């Protein structure tokens, strides 16, 4: 089960026995209209629907597909957060992960700390791949995968829209500003997912029952020996400046006249 960690140019990961770690963060559901608290101390999260970060659902789906293709043997979902994350992790297990790891902390976790936690788990689990969402839709930081790859000294393939695993390497198509970039990354590696990588499956009722018997390892954050850095302090939350509603024009001629008057056409 253990995959040897190749040095540079070293031994290859055996894909058929590969383990994949998947980051599986719980966030405010993407359909919720976010409200900033009037005193600027945060956003309203009480009673708000929470669900898996959509990019993490895509990450999990990709890991499951690689396992179904015989490219990987085991898929492990990882969440860092408070004690009530169990139901969220059960969703990941119901979707198809073999087991879950819950790193328990009631504190907010910044990306560098999350990356350090993942590094500890990587050292223990020796995965051939770590797949994370490219960003979480709460803090929109887009950092953890890249930071993990740096700390682990392994390749990163961010913003993936296509992943192929063969001969000890991942060939990844990345959605970048200039178009589609293809890179090769020797395994083990970190991949972060973009929207078009796949469409995550729906969870079926029998899978929810099955998930109840799958294991969730609980690890106290404090036991990992990770320094929780506090380099960034959020001091204020504000609602964004609103664009005021403009005017409705009756036809094309009126629109063109208005734009010409503003010097835009």
């Amino acid at each position, binding site marked *: 089960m253990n995959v040897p960690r190749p040095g540079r*140019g070293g031994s290859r990961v055996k894909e058929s026995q590969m383990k994949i770690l998947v980051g599986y963060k719980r966030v*405010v559901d993407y359909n919720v*209209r*976010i409200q*900033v608290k009037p005193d600027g101390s945060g*956003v309203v999260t009480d009673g708000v629907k929470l669900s898996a970060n959509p990019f993490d659902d895509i990450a999990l789906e990709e890991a499951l597909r690689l396992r179904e293709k015989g490219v990987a043997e085991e898929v492990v979902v990882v969440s860092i957060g408070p004690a009530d994350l169990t139901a969220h992790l059960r969703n990941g297990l119901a979707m198809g992960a073999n087991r879950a790891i819950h790193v328990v902390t009631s504190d907010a976790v910044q*990306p*560098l700390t999350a990356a350090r936690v993942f590094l500890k788990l990587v050292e223990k689990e020796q995965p051939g791949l770590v797949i994370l969402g490219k960003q979480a839709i709460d803090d*929109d930081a*887009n*950092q*953890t995968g*890249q*930071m*993990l790859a*740096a700390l682990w000294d392994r*390749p*990163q393939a*961010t*913003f993936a829209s296509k992943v192929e695993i063969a001969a000890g390497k991942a*060939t990844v198509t990345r*959605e*970048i*500003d*200039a*178009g*589609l*970039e*293809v*890179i*090769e990354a*020797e395994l083990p*590696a970190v991949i972060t997912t*973009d*929207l*078009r990588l796949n469409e995550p499956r729906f969870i079926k009722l029998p899978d929810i029952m099955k998930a109840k018997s799958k294991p969730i390892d609980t690890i106290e954050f404090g036991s990992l020996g990770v320094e929780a850095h506090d*380099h*960034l302090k*959020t*001091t204020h*939350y*504000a*609602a*964004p400046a609103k*664009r005021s*509603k*403009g*005017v*409705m*024009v009756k*036809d*094309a*001629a009126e*629109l*063109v*006249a208005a*734009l010409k008057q*503003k010097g*835009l*056409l």
Partner: protein
Amino acid sequence: MSKVLVIAEHLGGKLNSSTARAVSAAAAVKGEAIDVLVLADSVDAIAAEAAKIDGVSRVLTVAGPENAHPLAAVLAPQIAKVATGYSHVFVPSTTFGKDVAPRVAALLGVAQVSDVMSVEGAHTFKRPIYAGNAIITVEANPAHAVVATIRSASWPAAATGASNAPVEALAPDIALPAHTRFVELKQGASDRPDLQSASKVVSGGRGVGSKENFDIIFKFADKIGAAVGASRAAVDAGYVPSDLQVGQTGKIIAPELYIAIGISGAIQHLTGIKDAGTIVAINKDSEAPIFEVADFGLVGDLFKLIPDIENAID
């Protein structure tokens, strides 16, 4: 005093305008120096462009075949080495910067501030979270270097022309990894203006209906000299390639004129355009949320209205 290192973004031997925007953010730090770092296989032309940006103190270059393509795993250790002695490292918040900057931050053991919209002080910044539905003020610990990505749409490009900063070649002596390799870049050849820096953008959404129908968007854009964008729905439906996507997870843009055609205006799309000067919405559904943010709204069938608009322009 602060010293800011700005990482240049470039493609095909040309500097990307996101670099001059990051220099504007660097100037807002009000430090003693702004140096621009160019990593490329052939640096001269790019460095010469960067040297002309107002406010730049020096242009530093690292030339080599390993820097021919912007692989984060290869660039990050070089940037981290050069960053010694700087209080700030600023990188454009484009896919280039989003890829490489966190890798630099982790190598330096510091946090990163993503998508800086404003610089309130040398260590105090504003940035969006929740798809721009909240703006937070973040204070970085002055004891550490600040690594930040700069939200291009929030910053004007620093002026060019009057300056001529000195260019210095560096040769950081570090081993670079060979575990990540560039294979190819598939780019749609286009003579149209670049979506991220264009002053006018015409975008189409699901309402356009098909890949073939999207021609009407391209033709209209060409007529008014605009770049072409799209909503996620249009990209997901395969009407246009992904690099045209505007929104929370696509490109964040701030053109003077944005014309949204057949786009309903999901919050994730609005995030990408809220800094536009004037927004025009054309949609057959008068209840579409896009009209809530549009300066000018026009309800009707886009296949009739676009020819009408083209005729009215002539």
